[in-house]
């Protein structure tokens, strides 16, 4: 298995994890997504009928082992088939009618799981892995991500305007930048980028292939600010950009069935 510049011996990888013969094992994370670097760790997932490993580490109740493989840190998460099915069912049942429903969406580690399953590379039986991957409704997943980021954009935009009106210049600067970052995350999620970690946002903008958007991204990430008037101008143009992105991220007609 080749992941970027990393060559993984699958049998050696299987020896690293506590997997039984019928378990599903796959690798995922930023390296698999093509964004990793020399310091990036590798994420391995094991799905079993029953998890029996002994570990002191848990993330949101999910057992995790931390290991070393090919000079990299490897995080191994252990899920049961029942937990995975339960997650897929919850995703099927999500409703997108109002903003208050955002609170009912998947938790961060669950979103992580769905995203990493979507981009994962199987180590064990490909057909079984594919059937698990196909069980998830990725349009609903995208929609939940868009709504989550839009809710954050909306709140942050109101805060930025409040700060601007109060002449709290520093706060209005950071809040408006934050508002457009959330709007950009919503926009990227609308275009199929799920679970947008801010550290990879510029790479995801580049991957979208819109050079105008990338130029704007750089402009708003690296503004030349000297005076209070510069901040006021930045806040205005930044929020205009945020509003445009948020507007486009809500065009679901024809996408949702």
């Amino acid at each position, binding site marked *: 298995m080749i992941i970027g510049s990393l060559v993984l011996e699958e049998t050696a990888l299987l020896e690293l994890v506590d997997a039984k013969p019928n378990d599903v094992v796959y690798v995922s994370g930023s390296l698999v997504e093509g964004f990793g670097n020399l310091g990036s760790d590798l994420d391995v997932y094991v799905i079993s009928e029953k998890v029996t490993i002994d570990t002191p580490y848990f993330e949101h109740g999910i057992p995790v082992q931390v290991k070393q493989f090919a000079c990299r840190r490897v995080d191994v998460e252990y899920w049961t088939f029942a937990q995975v099915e339960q997650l897929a069912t919850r995703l099927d049942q999500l409703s997108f*009618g109002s*903003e208050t429903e955002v609170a009912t969406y998947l938790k961060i580690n669950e979103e992580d799981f769905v995203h990493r399953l979507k981009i994962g590379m199987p180590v064990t039986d490909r057909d079984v892995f594919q059937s698990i991957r196909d069980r998830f409704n990725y349009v609903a997943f995208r929609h939940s991500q868009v709504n989550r980021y*839009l809710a954050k*954009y*909306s709140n942050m935009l109101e805060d930025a*305007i409040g700060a601007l009106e109060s002449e709290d210049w520093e706060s209005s600067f950071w809040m408006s930048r934050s508002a457009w970052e959330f709007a950009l995350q919503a926009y990227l999620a609308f275009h199929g980028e799920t679970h947008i970690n801010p550290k990879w946002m510029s790479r995801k903008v580049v991957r979208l292939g819109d050079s105008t958007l990338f130029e704007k991204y750089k402009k708003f990430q690296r503004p030349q600010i000297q005076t209070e008037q510069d901040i006021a101008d930045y806040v205005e143009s930044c929020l*205009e950009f945020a509003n445009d992105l*948020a*507007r486009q991220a*809500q065009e679901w007609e024809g996408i949702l069935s």
Partner: protein
Amino acid sequence: MMDQKPKRHFTVQLRKIQNETYLICKQDVFKLDEIGLLIWDACDGTRTVAEIGNQISARFTEVDASEIQNDTLLFVNELVESGLVKLA
């Protein structure tokens, strides 16, 4: 006013909730219909009110153009008075 170019105010966000479109500005919420949304989208500071009216007329050829121009003017005026749009 027909020669002026309306531009959406940066404090106004558009949200689509349960198949309805709303403009939200601080504590105020305004509901938009299909034509209102077309006009709102066109208020980007590059088109005059007359040009926006022409754009709407092109979409709804069955309606009298002068009627659309007048309705567009009234609607943009309403947006301006509500502080949602500014004129350049």
